[in-house]
């Protein structure tokens, strides 16, 4: 965040409490809006950025509130100190729920949050000794005599603290979503397989996201304590969870400003309508309905500068000239005795092959030969039933797929798996996750060395885009590219991980003649830069011209291996491709 915005936020945090001087109602309302915005921000983290819908974020909110309340009432801690500790149990619960659900899928997250909130509600309602049950835990107003000595009223500094907490939370989220960590969330949301292939640990990043979301919701809950003063089990109610979800959706999913607008609406509108108390909920409902009908992308789309900003973010890219790209030499990839069965079907049957450093190997075979399965086995995406894969000294078999990418063995997919609603540049930038890595904390604190690395990531991304010839397309939405260019983009993303060995799954499928030629020349150039490549493809003409060595698979078995000319003369290969009794000439003609 630049200095001007820091000053601006600080000014608001100080000025707003004074603007409402002495008016407990307005400052209380503003504090409530800040709390709801913070809650919405937390929900948006999972719903918007991770794509995990939560039906029970009140579990984290309520836990934060109860943690703060219990620390004050049972441990005798100062509230403002408790405020700092209160997000921790919520973060831990987030990590736990996240770990359980991210392992098994997003639908489970919805269930897990909903049921967890319901369990916590029942516990809070029945553990009378601890929580006083439905009557509620009464927490006195946490006054700070030192501040009141300065002439501040409770409402003024309470509002100031709420605004500061919100500002800090927004800044945390802003930094993260613009860092490798946050970019990995978006990639994981679109396709966790793609993310893993680019070396992003999907499970760990999901857990981090959900734990952070839990912590923010817990903070919001703790801040809510001085507003409500009585903590009841309703803090875990589905109504509150729904409010968080609706704030995120109403404001605009996966935007930073959205939850702020949503929170403001949910806090202010029902209160502003109190003068018509009898009809206020109905009018609130009608307003919601109108917003949904007229502005389905959320309130954020109403801001005139919102779209402009999204563009501007992309254009600041080409400040750096693209640096030349180098690839470290590969190790030998050894697959020995690979067998993979699916039920009764043996897709790959006792295949052994090696890819030596500097080689460009082609893997061909008729449909159903087991090529893609073989590639998935070699890249660690599938567990072989028998056999093992080694990349140099590194064992690939039996480990998480992303570790293969982190050791320099990177695959692409047949389908162009991309993040379609972000730009070409952002797609490739997020793929620098492994090549120039960051931790959660370094992404959060963003020291000068982080900023230097971020510049390196930017120029690496730029270089990869230029290398595949998409330089002019850098700021276009990835989903808007024609098919051929999307294929090139997925190669650019793979290159941004600085692979040592690249496994390409049918890169030429669906390309026209010109595009296929461009691809060939790209692959040749990559080899000149020192990259080892293994390609699967149907386009025999291209493969014969391109590859140093060809491996032929048929019905899961290794049929032949050798130079293109050796392979094309091999009678077994000819038979496999053309059926028995055909002549060699036919094979050449097809090739």
């Amino acid at each position, binding site marked *: 965040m630049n200095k001007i915005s820091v000053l601006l936020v600080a000014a608001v945090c100080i000025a707003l409490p004074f603007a409402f001087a002495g008016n407990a109602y307005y400052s209380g309302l503003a504090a409530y809006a800040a709390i709801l915005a913070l809650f919405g921000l937390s929900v948006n983290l999972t719903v918007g950025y991770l794509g995990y819908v939560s039906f029970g974020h009140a579990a984290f909110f309520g836990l934060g509130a109860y943690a703060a309340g219990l620390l004050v009432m049972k441990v005798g801690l100062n509230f403002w100190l408790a405020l700092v500790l209160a997000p921790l149990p919520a973060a831990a619960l987030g990590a736990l729920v996240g770990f359980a659900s991210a392992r098994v899928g997003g639908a489970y997250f919805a269930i897990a949050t909903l*049921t967890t909130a319901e369990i916590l509600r029942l516990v809070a309602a029945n553990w009378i000794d601890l929580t006083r049950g439905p009557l509620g835990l009464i927490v006195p107003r946490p006054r700070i005599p030192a501040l009141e000595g300065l002439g501040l009223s409770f409402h003024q500094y309470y509002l100031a603290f709420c605004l500061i907490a919100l500002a800090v939370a927004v800044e945390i989220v802003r930094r993260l979503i613009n860092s490798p960590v946050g970019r990995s969330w978006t990639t994981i949301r679109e396709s966790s397989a793609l993310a893993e292939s680019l070396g992003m640990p999907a499970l760990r990043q999901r857990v981090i996201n959900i734990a952070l979301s839990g912590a923010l919701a817990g903070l919001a809950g703790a801040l809510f304590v001085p507003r409500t003063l009585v903590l009841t089990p309703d803090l875990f109610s589905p109504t509150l969870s729904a409010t968080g979800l609706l704030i995120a959706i109403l404001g605009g999913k996966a935007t930073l400003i959205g939850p702020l607008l949503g929170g403001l609406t949910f806090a202010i509108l029902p209160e502003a309508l109190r003068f018509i108390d009898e009809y206020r909920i109905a009018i609130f*409902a009608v307003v919601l309905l109108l917003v949904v009908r007229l502005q389905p992308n959320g309130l954020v789309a109403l801001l005139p500068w919102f779209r402009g900003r999204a563009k501007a973010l992309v254009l600041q890219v080409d400040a750096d000239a693209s640096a030349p790209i180098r690839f470290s030499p590969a190790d030998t990839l050894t697959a020995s005795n690979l067998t993979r069965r699916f039920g009764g079907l043996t897709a790959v049957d006792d295949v052994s092959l090696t890819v030596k450093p500097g080689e460009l190997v082609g893997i061909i075979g008729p449909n159903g030969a087991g090529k893609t399965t073989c590639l998935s086995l070699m890249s660690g995406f599938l567990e072989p039933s028998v056999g093992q894969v080694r990349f140099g000294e590194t064992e690939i078999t039996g480990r998480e797929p992303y570790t293969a990418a982190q050791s320099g063995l990177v695959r692409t997919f047949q389908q162009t798996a991309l993040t379609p609603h972000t730009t070409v540049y952002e797609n490739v930038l997020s793929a620098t996750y492994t090549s120039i890595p960051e931790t959660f904390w370094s992404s959060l604190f963003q020291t000068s060395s982080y900023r230097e690395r971020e510049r390196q990531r930017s120029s690496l991304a730029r270089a990869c885009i230029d290398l595949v010839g998409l330089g002019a397309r850098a700021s276009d939405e990835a989903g808007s590219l024609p098919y051929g260019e999307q294929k090139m983009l997925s190669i650019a993303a793979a290159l941004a991980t600085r692979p040592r060995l690249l496994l390409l799954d049918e890169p030429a499928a669906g390309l026209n003649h010109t595009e296929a030629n461009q691809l060939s020349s790209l692959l040749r150039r990559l080899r000149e830069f020192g990259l080892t490549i293994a390609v699967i493809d149907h386009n025999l003409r291209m493969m014969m011209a391109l590859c140093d060595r060809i491996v032929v698979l048929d019905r899961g078995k290794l049929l032949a291996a050798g130079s293109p000319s050796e392979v094309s003369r091999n009678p077994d290969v000819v038979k496999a491709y053309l059926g028995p009794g055909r002549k060699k000439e036919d094979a050449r003609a097809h090739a």
Partner: protein
Amino acid sequence: MTELLLQQLLNGLTQGMAYALVALGLTMIFGVLHVINFAHGEFYMLGGLTAVLVTASAGLPYVVAIALAIVLVGAVAWVVDRIAVAPVLDKRDGPSTVLLATFAVSLLIHQGVLQSWGPTPARVEGIPGAISVGSIVLGHQRLLVLVTGMALLVSIELVLRRTVIGKKIRALAQSAYAAQVVGIDTARVRRTTFIAAAALAGLTGALLSPVTLFTPAMGQHVIINAFVVVVIGGMGSATGAVVCGLALGVLEALASIYLPQEIGTAIIYALLLAALLVRPQGLFGSARA
């Protein structure tokens, strides 16, 4: 002891049938429209209100109330679909926006009833009398809930398996894209599903209001349990909703013999959560989730 167990089994089955029927509609809408209908509980409440108005206020027989509940709630659902579901669904990010829209509708329906009827609870005279064997008692109304519920579940299953519209619904639940390709009018099937599911909720409300009493808040109370049943059963799985609904009712009733009721419920939820770790797609969901 046996009598106590049997009595609790019967209690649990009627309660479970209520969960199952409300959850079934909710899960049908989710399966076909990929939308969570926040207003579903209010449809249930409207069914109960119809029963009150028809029997207590207009003095007509209870059977009329059941029929009218289906028709009236279906009509309300048609309007809701027109203004808040169908036009929103096709927009980008439609399903999550529909969440907002149906939430607004649920507030509107609830407030509308509070303004016109008021917050007063009311009794609905269903079918009086009871069957008793020893100390085991089953009220006629509860028997009606069980029998009608079973009949409904069977006929819904038949409709889904045997009829053209049922096949279209299942096709749409499988893949909206594929259904469109083979020429199914997806908008119409969605509308039909939405209205049918809502009418089912209305019918359930009319069936259960003699057991539970009518209150304007009854919809908000029932939706939470139904929602838990839907997610645990596997979102979009009809069998899952029915089996889980019945199971939850029976388990709660049986657990209540040994445990304080709310603690029993908490433990059941925790166990289900653990079970779902083993079967993440929901106990009856298809593996595609």
